[in-house]
């Protein structure tokens, strides 16, 4: 129980953020009640980027040390990142239907996240195509690093080069945060909560993979 305190803290924290998103924050002009998707859509996209970064970092560690646990961390992180990318895409698409009256517009931001999904889908295809554990880990590590190189371009650069329907991101060209202070509090709190949730999910996923490895060695 004492070691699990942060999990209970996350439970209470996210509950407060949900209450804050609905009862405390004002709605943005022109977006109405759909503004509240912001507190779930952007953190999902943030966690996706973070998890791909962590996957790339563990891939580099694997190539340096050749220890299988780094490959497990890299693959698990990429899997959770992929789930959060799908969540960000679907929530964004549903939001677009309400605001732009179409689920999909091939807007630069929509196109870039779609390309990102394809790139990481190929990562899992590569992993499932190789049986030898060490070869799989080595090739996947190289691919993961190359895949992450595209992330800053797809997430941060391309949507800023082309005209987009997407609202100004939080870190805009003027480097100013244009948000009501109450919205900002809940938004940052939600980012923190999602990050902690990602850490917990990653711990569970890697524990399962390590158990699988242990059991395979015993058989």
């Amino acid at each position, binding site marked *: 129980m004492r070691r699990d305190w942060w999990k209970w803290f996350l439970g209470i924290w996210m509950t407060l953020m949900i209450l804050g998103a609905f009862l405390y924050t004002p709605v943005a002009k022109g977006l109405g009640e*759909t503004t509240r998707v912001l507190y779930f859509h952007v953190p999902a996209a943030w966690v996706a980027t973070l998890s791909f970064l962590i996957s790339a970092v563990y891939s580099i560690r694997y190539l340096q040390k050749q220890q299988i646990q780094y490959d497990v961390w890299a693959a698990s992180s990429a899997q959770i990142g992929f789930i959060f990318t799908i969540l960000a895409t679907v929530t964004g698409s549903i939001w677009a239907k309400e605001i732009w009256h179409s689920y999909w517009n091939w807007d630069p931001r929509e196109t870039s996240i779609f390309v990102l999904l394809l790139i990481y889908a190929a990562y899992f295809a590569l992993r499932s195509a190789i049986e030898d554990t060490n070869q799989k880990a080595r090739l996947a590590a190289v691919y993961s690093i190359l895949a992450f190189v595209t992330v800053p371009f797809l997430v941060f650069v391309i949507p800023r080069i082309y005209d987009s329907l997407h609202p100004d991101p939080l870190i805009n060209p003027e480097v100013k945060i244009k948000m009501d202070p109450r919205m900002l509090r809940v938004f940052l709190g939600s980012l923190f909560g999602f990050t902690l949730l990602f850490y917990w999910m990653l711990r569970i996923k890697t524990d399962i993979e390590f158990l699988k490895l242990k059991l395979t060695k015993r058989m």
Partner: protein
Amino acid sequence: MGNSVSLYLLSVLGLLFQPETKEVGQNIYVVLAVTLIVWLGVFFFLLYLDRQLKQVKDKIDWENE
């Protein structure tokens, strides 16, 4: 994990496809309740998974000793 994703998507769908009536102020409480139920479902599911995993780990460690 699949359950968590479905629940999460349901909450967002609930948020966006609320009927456009004069009672938007009332509907927002319904959406809030659904979102909270979904989050608590995800939270307790992860907690349960975590506990089960710990038990399996302890059992394997005990068998190895």
